[in-house]
């Protein structure tokens, strides 16, 4: 039965309050005061008439390289400016909070020790440069802000007429009937299964660059889990077997210290704390939130093993273990959000990402549904306010990153690919903002003559964050596919698939399919989009699968890659399967679960005509697989 509880609404951009939102303004004041202290300390030696060395050191505090400029070393001054820029970049990338002040203060001290031919004109230059730059930045911000306000007003004129459908509980047939994997879908699924079903200590086929940024193994494991779960949700909800094993492998590989051990370093150099627990801290939503969603998807479709106490234990060594479980992840997210000034909280120490916090919200939402808690409603108003004011430009662009301590942000993280990924994951918790974001970004999409989609030409849209490769559209198109499909815009979803297909390649040995040049992360995101449908993430995380799926029979055993499952669905008593051979024609043995004990079931499409369930509700039968093959299991 379908229960239509969708409702239609309009979603305008919020009226703007000020050019700098309130919490951010507080952070800027802190930044200004910090610099004012440096400036005052830097100006003091000159005012007091101290020696040239002291004056140079002071000017080095007022402006990176200012002391060298004063002391007659202009090339050193340029070197220091470059070094400070690099240190800020590294601070953003890896979180070492001590690095910029170390370089800045260290260079000031060095300039005091190396003072040579003094240039008097450098003193006012050093004292005025940063205040002047700050004034220029503020003026530029106001000019751009005014343009964004005008753009926002134009958009609101049109948004008043746009009706967005906010999906409600989908009913027993889950909005759209369970679909069947095409042969191409199955080939892409094989890519994910081959990654997930290798031995637990192997990571062959994963991108291996670093464990800190977007290419980190944890993000690939997250995407692997999400895409496998989505495949189960929309195509094979009544197939557990190796598909559930693959999801468990992805979840349990996350417990490998090589995957999460980065946190000990980031916490040490970013927070100056020596705690190594990746969950019990006030940052690291890039692990806690992402992991919570991964486990939530598994638990929604399979079993609750990861909610048992200690089920997710991070073992550092023989003597040290950090004992957690799925409720513990949700509690950690809730605690951190409650305490955070922006409500959104950081990934790497200090740096808040809007996309990462969508995973935190989704962890709370799914935990509320699965365990009857009320974590998300407790924070919903604060989260909405933050997304709508602290992290939204007047023209509707979500601000991708912001410094928790100093309020800084930049446009690189407001590119379309980041917006689309954020909109996709935001759809479960804040569907109105997600759909409005999609509506705004969709207007910037273009088509090639063959109809395939193209994102606006910018570096941010042509980078694959999964391997830092520039000039590739695979990640951007994967994000487009995900968002378009989730918002129910099949026209753009197909256009994105068409773009991706320009890069398709097949493994000559297994037939698995992927997109050439794309990282493992981009390919797994593409799978997530490929296996998605209208409101799939929202349905899975917020409303969950229908009860019939949980009480009906399932295909619990099949060999991989001999048997590929294209469709598996139950109505609570009957099971319908569509299978394909993955390794040539085969006579395969299949195992059923969730049957009524001792009951006889009729088999259509199997070697045996009937099967009797054992006392534990299982049964086995055989099937001759030569091509696409339908099987029906129905109680007599």
């Amino acid at each position, binding site marked *: 039965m379908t229960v239509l509880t969708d409702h239609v609404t309009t979603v305008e951009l919020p009226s703007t309050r000020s050019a700098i939102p309130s919490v951010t303004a507080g952070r800027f004041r802190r930044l200004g005061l910090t610099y004012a202290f440096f400036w005052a300390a830097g100006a003091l030696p000159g005012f007091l008439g101290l020696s040239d060395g002291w004056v140079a050191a002071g000017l080095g505090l007022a402006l990176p390289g200012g002391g060298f400029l004063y002391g007659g070393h202009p090339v050193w001054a340029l070197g220091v400016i470059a070094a400070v820029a690099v240190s800020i970049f590294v601070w953003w990338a890896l979180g070492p909070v001590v690095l910029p002040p170390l370089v800045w203060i260290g260079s000031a001290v060095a300039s005091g020790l190396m003072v040579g031919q003094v240039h008097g004109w450098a003193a006012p230059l050093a004292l005025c440069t940063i205040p002047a730059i700050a004034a220029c930045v503020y003026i530029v911000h106001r000019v751009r802000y005014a343009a964004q306000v005008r753009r926002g007003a134009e958009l609101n004129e049109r948004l008043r007429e746009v009706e967005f459908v906010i999906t409600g509980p989908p009913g027993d047939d889950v909005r759209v009937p369970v679909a069947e994997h095409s042969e191409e879908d199955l080939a892409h699924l094989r890519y994910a299964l*081959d*990654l997930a079903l290798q031995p637990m200590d192997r990571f062959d086929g994963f991108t291996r660059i670093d464990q800190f940024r977007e290419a980190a193994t944890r993000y690939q494991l997250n995407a692997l889990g999400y895409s496998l779960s989505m495949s189960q949700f929309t195509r094979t909800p009544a197939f557990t077997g190796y598909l559930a094993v693959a999801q*468990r492998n992805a979840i349990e590989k996350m417990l490998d210290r*090589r995957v999460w*051990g980065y946190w000990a370093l980031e916490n040490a150099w970013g927070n100056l704390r020596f705690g190594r627990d990746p969950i019990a801290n006030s940052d690291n939503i890039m692990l806690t939130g992402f992991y919570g969603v991964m486990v939530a998807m598994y638990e929604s479709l399979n079993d609750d093993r990861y909610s048992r106490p200690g089920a997710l234990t991070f073992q550092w*060594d023989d003597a040290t273990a950090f004992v957690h479980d799925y409720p513990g992840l949700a509690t950690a997210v809730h605690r951190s959000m409650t305490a955070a000034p922006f409500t959104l909280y950081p990934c790497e120490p200090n740096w808040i990402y809007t996309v990462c916090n969508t995973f935190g919200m989704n962890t709370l939402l799914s935990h509320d549904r699965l365990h009857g808690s009320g974590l998300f409603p407790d924070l919903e108003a604060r989260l909405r306010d933050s997304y709508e004011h602290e992290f939204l430009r007047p023209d509707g662009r979500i601000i991708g990153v912001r410094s928790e301590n100093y309020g800084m942000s930049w446009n690189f993280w407001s590119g379309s690919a980041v917006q689309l990924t954020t909109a996709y994951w935001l759809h479960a918790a804040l569907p109105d903002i997600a759909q409005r974001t999609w509506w705004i970004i969709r207007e910037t999409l273009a088509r090639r003559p063959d109809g395939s989609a193209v994102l606006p030409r910018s570096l941010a849209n042509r980078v694959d964050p999964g*391997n830092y490769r*520039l000039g590739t559209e695979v990640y951007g198109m994967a994000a487009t596919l995900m968002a378009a499909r989730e918002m129910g815009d099949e026209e753009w979803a197909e256009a994105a698939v068409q773009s991706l297909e320009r890069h398709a390649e097949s493994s000559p040995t297994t037939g698995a399919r*992927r997109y050439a040049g794309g*990282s493992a992360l981009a390919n797994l995101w593409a799978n997530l989009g490929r296996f998605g449908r209208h409101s799939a993430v929202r349905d899975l995380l917020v409303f969950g699968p229908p009860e019939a799926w949980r009480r009906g029979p399932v295909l619990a055993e099949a060999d991989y890659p001999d048997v590929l499952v294209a469709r598996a669905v139950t109505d609570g008593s009957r099971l319908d399967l569509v299978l394909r051979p993955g390794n040539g024609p085969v006579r395969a043995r299949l195992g059923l679960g969730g049957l009524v004990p001792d009951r006889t079931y009729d088999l259509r499409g199997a070697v045996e005509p009937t099967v009797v369930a054992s006392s534990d509700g299982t049964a086995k039968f055989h099937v001759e697989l030569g091509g696409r093959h339908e099987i029906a299991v129905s109680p007599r």
Partner: protein
Amino acid sequence: MACCVAIACVVAAVRAAWAWILGRDPAEEVFPPAATWRSGRVAGMPAPNTSFPTSGPIAETPIGRPLAATVVVYALLIHLLVATGAARIDESMPGGWLARDAVLLGLAVVLMGVASRPMSMPSALVCVGAFWFVLGMVDMHVASGVEIPSLIVDAAFHLSGWWLAVAAAGVLIVERRAETTPLGGSL
């Protein structure tokens, strides 16, 4: 927009240099090997709460490349120090800069050809740090090819290699004690 271009260029340059030093493209994308799964097999690992990180293949690199890169960086830094007045080269040396750079370039090429022993990242960093220290000492205080008048800059220059070696050795000791593979990039 300019800062986006700058960041992208930095990322691309770092990525290319990193790939060269490692001797492989770390982002080379390949299909995973074919997996198999037989019904009835006990799934995954023993149990999540008893799992312990097991050793995987350690990413290793031939030591010649990082050492060659060290020589190139050393040569460039000496140019920079001399340009800023923080260092002086021996003007009487026949051939001047050309000879110095040729010798250093030759050393880099030889190192790439001869030193092919694969090493893990911390081990390689110990070697790089020690090599930086030795290279500077030999160049400045044995061959007298370069002179740094400031004792502070001189000490900082040499000790930078020493500190790197000590820090990397610390990581190596911690890793070996824990009998696990290194953090970061070692999967």
